[in-house]
């Protein structure tokens, strides 16, 4: 996966760097209305979402 974004925005580290972690975590778990981002709260715990966010912020090597 390129993580450059599809109908949603890029998930590359440089695209996320200036956004607060709390905001990103909230987006993962609660989704964002009026966009293509669904909430993942039914499938991920907060700890799992934090782990995922760390991976995205660090950069996932293909």
């Amino acid at each position, binding site marked *: *996966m*390129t993580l*450059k*974004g*599809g*109908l949603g925005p890029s998930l590359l580290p440089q695209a996320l760097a200036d956004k607060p972690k709390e905001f990103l975590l909230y987006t993962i778990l609660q*989704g964002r209305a*009026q966009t*293509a981002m*669904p*909430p993942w709260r039914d*499938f991920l715990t907060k700890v799992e979402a934090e782990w995922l966010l760390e991976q995205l912020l660090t950069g996932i090597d*293909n």
Partner: protein
Amino acid sequence: MSYNLWCFRTLIFITLFPIFFVPTLCMGEPVITTQNSNYFRGSGDLGVIIERASGSVLIVETTTHTRLARIQGLGDLSHASVAYSRDQRYAYIFGRDGGLTKLDILRGEIVKRVMQAGNSVGGAISQDGRLIAVSNYTPGGVKVFDAVTLELLADIPAEFGNNGNRRRSKVIGLVDAPGQRFVFSLFDAGEIWVANMHTPNSPKIIKFKEIGRQPYDALISPEGRYYIAGLFGEDGLARLDLWNLDVGVQRILPNYSKGEEKRPVYKMPHLEGWAMAGDYAFVPAIGQHAVLVVDRRTWQQVKVIRVHGQPVFVMAKPDARHVWVNFAFPNNDTVQVIDVMTMNIIKTLKPGKAVLHIEFTPRGEEVWVSVRDEDKIIVYNAETFSEVATLPANKPSGIFFTVRAHKIGL
């Protein structure tokens, strides 16, 4: 199938290379110089399967359920699709990273590969087979290439907005249309554009604005008359009658989720395989566990079929007798079959974890289903629903048979 794949690769070179290469060079005079002319074959029963994680594709043959070759080095194929040349020899593979690859499926070789954009999501071949169009997210627009050389012929930036705020939109739902046209939608702009390509380096573009919020995918009806875009940002679909452009874009199914709980969407439905079966069209309802049935004459909804999850592909069997449906996460281990006559579900199959795509053989006696997380393709008998064969594949997603070469919009 116990061979290693490199054996297939070797096999295709030993058996196919001399036989197909030589006659092609000697145009007009098929001089067969090889030891065994029985290998001189057509490609109507071949296909390509995308292996999304490894940037490779499998070339397969549907008559005996065989993998012929694995071709590697195609870049990021996480949402890849394929169009075929009308001679059914070349597959044009549209990669997610903007890569456009022309693959000779008889020789099992990449003929040409260009990186044409940074972020891409699909393509189409023109009515006359001479042009390849690719729709891009970044930079947003459509590029048109010569189908033989992959030379860039036209660049159509998807610009929208006022003078003070010009932006480029992501482009989705690109299809070919009769009259040597390409039709596509602008996700961010909410527009549909029709590009007449009779003069390839100077496309004539007609723009339809305010067609609805966030068109996310589109299709063209099998005869090439109606272009229909699904809307993510609001209810309904936007329909353009290509026989009657003056009428403009009209909204159909405007209130289909009225009174329904709108669920989160974990995967956008695909409209490409939208089932036009007899008098009815079968449409995935976005955000609902439902397939909508629409009367094709009045474009009114006649039934809501409750299904196992949110539909992704809603595919009609070539004879239009049945419609096969797969589903978005977390219900993506299942396929259901709808009987077109009664509009009821007649079969529920569990192919396995992450069913991504469904493709029928040309006349529909069998159907191939990709099961990504179990690294396999299952072939079903489309009449009895029994499993006919299983083929290993590495994280398979899209399955594309050469029969698409002669279908408008595919």
